[in-house]
């Protein structure tokens, strides 16, 4: 292919220019993500929360870009910010906001939420402590090019000699994610159907 079509990483490295990913960008995006993330859970108005969530998602997309993962960033924008959040807003707009904002905010399942938050925190701390050792090196090779074959390779491993895909190492995670979506769909059906 045309050399001009090489990925941003290569050209940036080859041309010897300073990479775009300066610490400033990182701190700005990370700060934005955290701040808007906080806004998501503190705003009483659901639409404000949703808007803040969009900002979070966009700043995370920016972080992906800084990791030279433009494909993931693009998918993040198109799927989450563009698609899912529009549906979110669609639903939220139909809810009676005044009523919702008067709801009691901390209800009886807060201990569960606290436990989940603590578990997540523990995960992050352990990741931070153990550092890179937790992650396989392959991860870094992922976003170098956008071509579909490599993405397939990432998900399903190398293409076998007979044209069959062997099961890659991320398949389990991938399938669990789809299970999550299935649960979400079922939940939506149960919530909207008054009688099943």
């Amino acid at each position, binding site marked *: 292919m045309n050399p001009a079509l090489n990925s941003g990483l290569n050209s940036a490295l080859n041309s010897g220019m300073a990479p775009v990913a300066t610490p400033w960008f990182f701190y700005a995006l990370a700060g934005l993500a955290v701040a808007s993330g906080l806004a998501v859970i503190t705003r009483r108005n659901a639409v404000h929360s949703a808007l803040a969530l969009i900002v979070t998602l966009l700043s995370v997309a920016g972080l992906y870009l800084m990791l030279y993962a433009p494909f993931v960033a693009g998918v993040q924008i198109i799927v989450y910010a563009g698609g899912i959040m529009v549906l979110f807003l669609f*639903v939220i707009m*139909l*809810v*009676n906001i005044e*009523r*919702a904002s008067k*709801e009691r905010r901390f209800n009886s399942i807060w201990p569960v939420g606290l436990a989940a938050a603590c578990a997540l925190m523990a995960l992050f701390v352990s990741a931070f402590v153990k550092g890179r050792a937790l992650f396989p090196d392959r991860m870094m090779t992922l976003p170098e090019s956008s071509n579909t074959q490599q993405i397939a390779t990432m998900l399903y491993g190398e293409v076998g000699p007979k044209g069959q895909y062997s099961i890659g190492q991320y398949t389990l995670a991938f399938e669990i994610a789809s299970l999550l979506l299935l649960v979400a769909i079922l939940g939506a059906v149960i*919530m*909207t159907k008054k009688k099943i």
Partner: protein
Amino acid sequence: MSFPANDRTNLELETPDKPYLDSNELIINMGPQHPATHGVLRVILKLDGEKVLGTECVIGYLHRGVEKIAENRTYTMFNPYVDRMDYVAAVSNGLGYCEAVEKLMNVEAPARAKYIRVILTELNRIASHQLWLGTHALDIGAMTPLFYTFRDREEILKIFEKYCGARLTTHAFRIGGCQYETYAGFEKDVKNFLTFVAPKIDEYETLLTTNRIWLERTRNVGVISAADAIALGVTGPVLRASGVQWDLRKAQPYAAYSEFDFEIPIGTNGDTYDRYLVRMVEMRQSLRIIEQAVNGIPEGPIMGKVPKVIKPPVGEIYHSIEAPKGELGYFIVSDGSTQPYRLRVRPPSFVNLQALDIMVRGMLVADVVAVIGTLDIVLGEVDR
């Protein structure tokens, strides 16, 4: 459906204890200032999402008390007022009124006057249908027909202006006949108009009749069955589109209509598309009538033998004509004086508008607009 009687502007909804994510009905207030309500109609819509659960028309924003005015004016003085009811078809209003008073006085207009009346009334019917088509298409989102119809309607208004000096509220007829003899070149103008407008009607049809979106927007929209239409007293093209072949020009001919050969188009489904087709054919039939009338217009006086002071004998009369919108009736009670004791107008738009509710139930918001357009209401006549 019931709205609180005196508090109809209060659109707040009670939210009883419903589940957290439950949605409730939306009440929106369409009009009186709304681009598609043809004036000052106000429709309160009860919606489930976009689906219409019920409507209520709030009318009267243009009420001027025409019937009260009639009781305080002489018959002659009241004549111009009728033009202000259905201002889109002022000539028809005048014809109905003049004929009603003539009937009450037991006089008849001379043949030439009757022919002039037919020509002008039919021209007016075309103008009214053109205005209807333009605005109806605009409501459905087609901008262009509006300008085409207004361009061609202009030619009719020019003829009116040359005949009586007014374009819209013409006051063209007098009790007993017509005040003005036709101007020189009237017949030529009318004939020119006939050859001018026939291809223009084809042009409107090219834009709409087979247009897929137009078909989708109008077919099976606002369906009203013949039985419902009769029960609701709906008349005019709306009734005919439901399959009832009834037109006062044929059923109980007035003016000179019994002398002309024309057809009454009817529809089969009673939907918006049929009403569109019926009106399109009616325009062409009007052209036929005008052609016959202008070719056969007799010589003679244009004013019948009526006294200077109109003083009908004691009695009462109901006379109705086929206005572009439907049956336009005048019920006049005379006490023998120069002023009507009671004058009741039976407005077609008012009665037709009543059918809006059953026509739009279960349809979408966009259809409400289409149905208001297809009913062809003029608020000046609804509210009087």
